[in-house]
C-alpha cells in the first residue's frame, strides 16, 4: 500500500540532497574534528561550514551556533543554561502555557530548583499576547521563552513584538523555533532574538542533531561537561554527519523557502477546506496566522487515537493530541489552554504536510476521512444523530 505521510511536524524524511551531503562522513571523512591530522581537520572544516549554513538561515553569525543532539537539548540548554548563569540577577522566567514539553518540563524542573516561572495564558487560537508578556515582567525576570510556531495547532506567535519587549527590558528572549524554521521567515537580528532552538529532523535533516543560536555576549552555562566542544557549551564528540546534514538542510530550506511555503500553503488550504465540510468538526489554532503545513481539527464524539489508527490502516499517517495516546491520559495541554473542553480535545487530529506531499495525496485523504469518521461515530455513545 502506498503510504501518505502527513506527520511532518513529528519528524520528516531525510531529503536525498541532505543524505548525499552526509554520507562521506560515515565511511570516508570519519575523523574527529578535534584531531590534528588531515582526517580530523577535514571533519572540523565540514562542521564549520555547516555552522555557517545554519547561521545564515536565521541571520546569525557562525560563532553563535551551538550544535546539540536535538531540539529538546537546545531548549534545555537555553533555559537551564541562562537560568543558572544569571541567577544572581534574578530567578524569574516567563513562558507560555502552550510550549512543547521540552520547555514545560524544563521549567517545572527549574521550579523544583527554586526558580519562579510564569506560564502565560493564550487566546482561543493559542496565541500569546505581547501585552501579557510585558505585564508579567518583574525586576527578577531574566528570561522570556515563547515558541515561534506551535507544534500542535500551528499558531504563529508574535515573536518579533515579544523580542522587542524583552530588549526594552534588557531580558533575554529565547524562542523555540523547532517548528518555525523553513515555515516562517526568521531573522534573529530583526526579531531581537537572543536564543533560538531548532532541530534537524523537522526540516529533512536527520534525527540526532539540533542547534541553539546564542547571541554573542549572552551569559549561559553548559549542561554537559567534558572535552569542551562547541565552545564548551556541548561537550562530546560532534555528530559530524548529522551536523553536515543539518547545515545542508538549512541551506536548502532557505534556497527553496518561497517555493516550499507556497506549496505547503496550497496543500494546507485544500485539506483544511475539505475537512471543515465534515459535520461537527472545527479547526484548532488560528485560521490564518498559522504554519503553512499545519491542519489541526477536532472531530466531535470520537477519540483521536482511533482516528489515527483507522487512517493508518488506510495508508494515511497523521497524529493526535488525544490523551488516550499518551502516558498520563490528560488531553492535549495546548487544546485545553485554548479553552477547549476535554471531550473535544480528545478528538483532535493533526495533519502536517511538507514540500514532498502532493495534491493527489490530499484528495485521497479527503475521500477517505469522512467514512472513517462516520464509522467511529457509529460506535460512539456520545454521538446521537
Amino acid at each position, binding site marked *: 500500500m502506498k503510504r501518505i505521510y502527513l506527520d511532518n*511536524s*513529528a*519528524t520528516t524524511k531525510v531529503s536525498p540532497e541532505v543524505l548525499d551531503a552526509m554520507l562521506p562522513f560515515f565511511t570516508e571523512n570519519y575523523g574527529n574534528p578535534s584531531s590534528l591530522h588531515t582526517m580530523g581537520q577535514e571533519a572540523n572544516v565540514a562542521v564549520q561550514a555547516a555552522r555557517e549554513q545554519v547561521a545564515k538561515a536565521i541571520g546569525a553569525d557562525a560563532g553563535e551556533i551551538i550544535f546539540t543532539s536535538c531540539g529538546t537539548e537546545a531548549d534545555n540548554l537555553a533555559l537551564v543554561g541562562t537560568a543558572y548563569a544569571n541567577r544572581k540577577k534574578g530567578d524569574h522566567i516567563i513562558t507560555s502555557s502552550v510550549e*512543547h*514539553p521540552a520547555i514545560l518540563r524544563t521549567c517545572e524542573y527549574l521550579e523544583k530548583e527554586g526558580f519562579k516561572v510564569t506560564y502565560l495564558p493564550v487566546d482561543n487560537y493559542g496565541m500569546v499576547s505581547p501585552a501579557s508578556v510585558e505585564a508579567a515582567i518583574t525586576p527578577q525576570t531574566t528570561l522570556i521563552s515563547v515558541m515561534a510556531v506551535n*507544534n*500542535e495547532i500551528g499558531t504563529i506567535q508574535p515573536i518579533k513584538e515579544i523580542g522587542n519587549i524583552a530588549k526594552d527590558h534588557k531580558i533575554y528572549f529565547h524562542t523555540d523555533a523547532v517548528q518555525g524554521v523553513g515555515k516562517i521567515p526568521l531573522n534573529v537580528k530583526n526579531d531581537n532574538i537572543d536564543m533560538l532552538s531548532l532541530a534537524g529532523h*523537522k526540516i529533512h535533516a536527520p534525527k540526532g542533531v539540533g542547534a541553539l543560536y546564542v547571541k554573542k555576549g549572552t551569559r549561559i552555562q553548559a549542561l554537559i561537561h567534558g572535552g569542551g566542544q562547541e565552545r564548551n557549551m556541548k561537550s562530546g564528540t560532534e555528530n559530524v554527519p548529522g551536523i553536515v546534514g543539518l547545515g545542508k538542510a538549512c541551506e536548502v530550506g532557505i534556497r527553496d523557502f518561497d517555493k516550499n511555503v507556497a506549496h505547503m500553503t496550497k496543500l494546507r488550504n485544500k485539506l483544511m477546506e475539505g475537512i471543515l465540510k465534515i459535520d461537527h468538526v472545527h479547526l484548532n489554532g488560528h485560521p490564518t496566522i498559522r504554519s503553512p503545513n499545519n491542519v489541526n481539527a477536532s472531530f466531535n*464524539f*470520537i*477519540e*483521536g*487515537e*482511533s482516528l489515527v*489508527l*483507522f487512517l493508518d*490502516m488506510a495508508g494515511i499517517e497523521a*497524529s493526535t*493530541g*488525544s*490523551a*488516550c*495516546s*499518551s*502516558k*498520563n*491520559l*490528560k*488531553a*492535549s495541554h*495546548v487544546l485545553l489552554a485554548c479553552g477547549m473542553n*476535554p*471531550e473535544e480535545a*480528545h478528538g483532535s487530529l*493533526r495533519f502536517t504536510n511538507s514540500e514532498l506531499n502532493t495534491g493527489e495525496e490530499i484528495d485521497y485523504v479527503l475521500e477517505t476521512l469522512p467514512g472513517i469518521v462516520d464509522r467511529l461515530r*457509529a*460506535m*460512539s*455513545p*456520545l454521538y446521537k444523530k
Partner: protein
Amino acid sequence: MMYSPKVMQHFSNPQNVGEIPDADGVGEVGNPVCGDLMTIYIKVKDNKLSDIKFKTFGCAAAIATSSIITTMAKGMTLEDAVKISRNDVAKELGGLPPQKMHCSNLAADALKLAIENYRRKLQGLPPRTGVTEGEEEHAEDGASCPPEEHK
C-alpha cells in the same frame, strides 16, 4: 506496532457494535474527560447472556476490549460473565501495552455493571452509573512505555 495483532483485528473489525433498545441491563462506565466512555447492553435469557452489544468512545484498546469482551461473554451464564477479569480480557487479546491496561478494566467493569443493573432491575432498584466526571489519574503503570506527545 504497540498493539498485538488480535487487538488490531478487533479494533479494525469490532464485533457486536451497537445498542439494544430493549436491553435487560446497561452498564455505562468511563470518563469523557479522560477520553473514554463505554456502554454495554445485555439481553438475558435463562440466566445466560443471549445478546450483548457495545458503544465506545475511546482508543483502539478501548474499542478492542469492548469487542472482545462481548464475544467472550455471549452465551455465558451471568455468574461466569461477571467473573471475567481485566486480565482475562488482556490475555485474550494477546496482551496490552502497560498504559492501556486500564482500558481492559473499563470493559470488564462495564459488563459487570450491566449485569448488576440487570439484577437491580429485577429487584426494582434504579440502575447505577459508572461514569465519572472531572480529572483523575487512572493510568496503571506507564513507566516503561514511551509517552506520545505531539512532536
